């Protein structure tokens, strides 16, 4: 991607920090924020590609409704980044290809 676009923190200096990685790259987050917020602040605006056409997607609603923030977290696929709080040492990966957890697939 050509330009890296960061969300900016209003109070950059404050808050405890948490270290995670996205695709192996270190990401410094603030305790209490969500994985989706942390990735946006680090300039990762897309965390997945759609299973249908392979188009990139990134967080859209930030309230748990759209599922465009899905990422792999600590080895578990299809986690909602906007609904998961950051933890030290978290390993976050991009999701590509087929989505294996569809609604109702638990049966």
């Amino acid at each position, binding site marked *: 991607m050509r330009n890296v676009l960061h969300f900016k923190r209003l109070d950059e200096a*404050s808050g405890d920090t948490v270290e995670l990685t996205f695709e192996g790259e270190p990401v410094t987050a603030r305790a209490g*924020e969500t994985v989706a917020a942390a990735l946006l602040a680090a300039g990762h605006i897309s965390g997945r590609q759609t299973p249908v056409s392979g188009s990139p997607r990134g967080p859209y*609603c930030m*309230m748990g409704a759209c599922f465009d923030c899905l990422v792999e977290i600590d080895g578990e696929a299809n986690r909602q980044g906007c609904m998961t709080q950051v933890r030290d040492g978290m390993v976050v990966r991009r999701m590509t290809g087929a989505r294996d957890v569809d609604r109702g697939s638990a049966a």
Partner: protein
Amino acid sequence: MSERFDVAIIGAGPAGLAAAGVLGQAGCSVTLLDEQAEPGGQIYRGIGSASGPRKSVLGADYAAGASLLPSLAHDSVTHIAGATVWEVTPERDIYYSQAGKASGLKAEHVLVATGATERPMPFPGWTLPGVMTAGAGQILLKTAGMLPPSPCVLAGSGPLLFLIAAQYLAAGFKIDAIVETTPRGNLAKALPHLPGALLNNKYLRKGLAMLASLRKAGIPHYKASTSLVAEGDGQVEALKFTSGGKPHRLACASLLIHNGVVPNVQISRSLNLDHAWDSLQHCWHPVTDASGATSLAGFRVAGDGGGIAGAEAAAHGGRLAALAILEDLGKITGGERQARSSDDSAALKWHGRARPFLDALYAPAREFLEPADSTIVCRCEEVTAGKIREFVDLGCLGPNQAKSFGRAGMGPCQGRYCGLTVSSVIAAKLGKEMDEVGYYRIRPPLKPITLRELASMDLDDDADERPAA
């Protein structure tokens, strides 16, 4: 099913919190479930942890939400945070997941207070990374103190669009443009409702003050914009549109879009409660009486999930529903309920006065209700408006058939961001009313759950009651 409660409230926004306060004070056992980490709902997201400066940026209406938090202090009220409800049965069994573990509980009464979601705003390019709802931008500000990258363009219609622009301004962040899509003809349709709205002109005054502050800051404001297209290679780079008879192209690194809010009907639909089409608000809402009672005994709905009326009205509605539940539980008499309801009933009416004017003024533009053929309407399964029209040509008569024709609405969002559009595209193509065409049937689980979560459910005597998910 081990735990039993007098009342289960789903949603800890103003409606759910206000109800919990009334019920907790009366000593009822209440469980308040919300999938967010903190109480407050959409308007008061992060209210318990927002710093003083963040509160002043977000404004007095936001800060006022803190007054609802003492509801949670009652001993008999249990707030289960981070709990996503994925099934509610007509027998009032509630299943939810929290931190990767599924659990169930049973309640005598259920209050659904799940609020609103932003109305779908499909146009070419709305799926590009960097395009987000304005509500998402606001959530990032409320919960993480974050501002979007510049240049930032806000596009769409409705009071929230201007509120967010004003909150950004208060945070020292000047967005680069507002591309308003409110159709030109709306004002004339709204004017007959103006006398009613003047009886409660609080919203009007606030709205005008907000618009004035944006004008004063010199933010370009394109009115009655049409033909929106977001462009970009892998991420949003520009918004193209027509306004004032001229084509425009604005470069942007973030594009926040908004097209009003509509009731979140996932739970009420999954229970097959009666719903009515509201032609002024352009949405369905569950049919309720003044206390939120639905077509199914034991289930009430309060707040914006029952019809859009705003946060203050949501709190009044929550209290009215709670008082009715107290009467049902035999904790107060009918007379007591009436006496205690009068203030909230009057306030609810007062808040309602401003609605018809606002609803008519900000009625959504046609181009988002019946998008051009190439526009993706179902984000999850990437089904275009043109495909839906093709399905109709092939004999598809409604949204549920559209699922089998081409998976529209079958992705994980379960139609939250395409249901209204798919119904309106089909209705327009068939020349029918929305009510005739109907809405998706919503089936549990309301959110995807993993096998691991299901397997984590505590098995006990009535394990056979467990739903087949």
